[in-house]
């Protein structure tokens, strides 16, 4: 388990800020203890200090993962967010999208969201902002990137994509090997 270099920490926080904005501070400053980010084999894990102390006792070749995997760094040093980060980012989301039940299944298969599947969208979402995708029962389904701003969405035709798919909870079944 390595600490993240400054450059990489910056890249990580920039990506997180796209989805939760200034609430990134709340991820670091938590009332229930100190949580930190550690890196192993280019994957970033979010662990509390207590668990980290225990994880350090395991030899690195035998350690598969510790804490929650937020995502991984690609070969060209870009950060890719994984679906395993959903539970930590959902409460702090800046902009949300609610899907109609018809489009829910499509999104869970990995397709983008079209205007016809859009139920609600939070106000003042700008174009290409990171959004959290919910279903009508307020259950978080995954991450996305808004293809259009809120005002633009009203003028889109029903087949135009409104949100690009980034990660969804269907991946737990579809890409099991990739998540670990």
């Amino acid at each position, binding site marked *: 388990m390595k600490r993240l270099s400054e450059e990489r920490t*910056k890249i990580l926080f920039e990506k997180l800020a796209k989805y939760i904005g200034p609430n*990134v501070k709340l991820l670091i400053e938590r009332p229930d203890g*100190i949580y930190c980010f550690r890196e192993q084999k280019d994957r970033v894990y979010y662990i509390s200090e207590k668990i980290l102390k225990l994880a350090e006792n395991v030899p690195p070749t035998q350690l598969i993962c510790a804490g929650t995997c937020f995502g991984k760094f690609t070969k060209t040093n870009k950060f890719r967010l994984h679906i395993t980060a959903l539970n930590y980012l959902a409460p702090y989301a800046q902009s949300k999208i609610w899907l109609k039940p018809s489009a829910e299944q499509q999104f869970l298969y990995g397709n983008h969201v079209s205007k016809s599947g859009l139920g609600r969208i939070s106000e003042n979402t*700008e174009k290409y902002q990171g959004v959290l995708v919910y279903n009508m029962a307020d259950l978080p389904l995954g991450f996305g990137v808004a293809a259009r701003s809120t*005002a633009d969405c009203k003028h889109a035709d029903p087949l135009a994509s409104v949100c690009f798919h980034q990660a969804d909870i269907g991946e737990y079944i579809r890409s099991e090997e990739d998540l670990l």
Partner: protein
Amino acid sequence: MDVVKDVLEKSAKEADKYKSVEVNKLIDIDVGALLAIDSNPLDSKALRSSPNDYLLKLTRDNVQLMYNQIWELPTERIEEAIVVKLPKPKYSLPRAKPVPKPRSLTKWEQFAKAKGIVKKKRTKLTWDDQLKKWIPLYGFKRAAAQKEKDWVLEVPQNANPMEDQFAKKVEAKSERVAKNELQRLHNIAKAKHVKIPRFGLTNPDVSSAKELQAAVTVAKSSTASLGKFQEKLPKEKEARGVGAITPGATRKRKLPPVSGSDEKTQNLNIVETVLNKRPKIDMEKAVARHMNDEQLQRSEEKKGERPKRLRKSHGSSTGGGGRKKPKNSNRPRKGKMAGGRKRR
């Protein structure tokens, strides 16, 4: 007899048609090169009066003489063609291209010449005291002999005892080979007058983006302060993996904080910098918000207009039409709205 006479007369007549085969002249003929040199002086009178005819006659005679010579050689017959084998040419033609310059000497050859070092031929087999036998210096069975000699390697006094001496030897050999190869290529480049820089990229025109990036990173750190005060372009990325060739340029990594709270404060600082970089007044967001507000306004106006229009339809229609506000006609439209709003 008559037949024979007739044939002879016929051939005599035909011979008269063609000019005589005999010509009395002395010219140089090299049959091997099919070359005939006529050094007899030209008849100036004939040349002036009828040059074409005179020259034609002259050439014809010379060619006739050459043919006479060719026919004197032994002939063969290959598939209905009479062939003659030409002898070797005696006349040597002058050079078509200039004499090539002698090859320029390599660096070692120049040095050897200056110092007077002469190449001495070494015998293949040399007596080796350690193995007590004759081993070849090169070629067949050399590698096996060397392996026999290297059955043990001493660790020198000043060396690290955990170092692998065998691996060190192999690495040193490969380094020597690589150096020799580099010098050989330098010699070739020098001989062909190809200019190659001493350091850096040999040909920037065909270098890949990664090589160029590495070159830029190396150049940047080649200053007295190892590139610490060199400005970077806003989106310029430094090459990764050039740490070996830019020693000292990468900043020493600060020791990571020991306690968790120190790390927390460090992370918070980084978050601050990241959030500060985001623009406070985001143009896109402001424009989107502005458009949103306008749309709400317009929809409210429409709601306001509809019941009033219903009332006014009993009255004058022009009044309702005249009430249309030309508001927002000069509003600067941005981006998507530039062409006019698309009605749903």
